[in-house]
């Protein structure tokens, strides 16, 4: 994807209030680029879930958006604790979020399933103690 447009965002793991800013910015960018609204919405929801996860589970990280005429790729990379059992984490309702996170409106265990539902392809690369990288792929053609 050498000819791709590339946008980078630092996701601040220390600030719950700022979580989601990269997704809001990305949504604006995609609008300016004339990406169809239905695709923008799917990207926004999936990226937002991933961004929130990076903040509440993994001390933040990097969000990158790569755009070509054919595909959009979102990568969410953190050096957090990693996901011990991906299959379990992908189940609707599975969450390790503590009560203080639930009080903030997250921890329903719906984020990863939503990311899967609202992407064309999703890849999770995770190692306990090393970190997690998630790729969200969208095919425009």
């Amino acid at each position, binding site marked *: 994807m050498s000819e791709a447009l590339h946008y980078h965002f630092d996701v601040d793991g220390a600030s719950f209030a700022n979580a989601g800013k990269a997704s*809001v910015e990305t949504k604006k960018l995609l609008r300016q680029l004339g990406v169809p609204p239905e695709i923008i919405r799917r990207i*926004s929801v999936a990226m937002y879930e991933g961004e929130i996860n990076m903040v509440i589970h993994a001390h933040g990280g990097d969000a990158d958006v790569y755009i070509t005429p054919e595909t959009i790729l979102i990568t969410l990379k953190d050096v957090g604790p990693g996901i011990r059992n991906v299959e379990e984490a992908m189940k609707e309702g599975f969450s390790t979020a503590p009560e203080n996170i639930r009080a903030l*409106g997250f921890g*329903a265990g719906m984020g990863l*399933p939503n990311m899967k*539902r609202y992407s064309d392809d999703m890849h999770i690369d995770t190692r306990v103690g090393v970190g997690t990288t998630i790729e969200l792929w969208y095919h425009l053609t």
Partner: protein
Amino acid sequence: MKISEVARILNANVMTGEDKLDMEIHSACGSDMMSDVLAYVKDQGVLLTGLMNVQVIRTLLMMDMNCVVFIRGKVPPQGIVEFAEENGVVVLQTALPMFESCGRLYAAGLGKAEEGAEGINGEYGADDE
């Protein structure tokens, strides 16, 4: 249903978005868990919630929803109202609890099959006609 109608039915205060009360909405969702909203909400909806932080507004923006109702008489902090205003989101505030708020709107016809709103992947469309 117009947003002004939602406000009337819920006896709600309009905290911001006076100029958008004529906007039509076709569905509603009540939840305090944002990922539930992100999973299930239909197009052009209103969110009823007891949760009160900036992520409520970001969740609406991600979903292209344009109205939030804060329930149980909680008054949103000015920062949240301002953030909503900057992004064109209507903020309503009602003293009613969640169950009654949803019940009133549903009884008035919001979100019923004939409105024909579909889920974001089209899988939550009317199927009981």
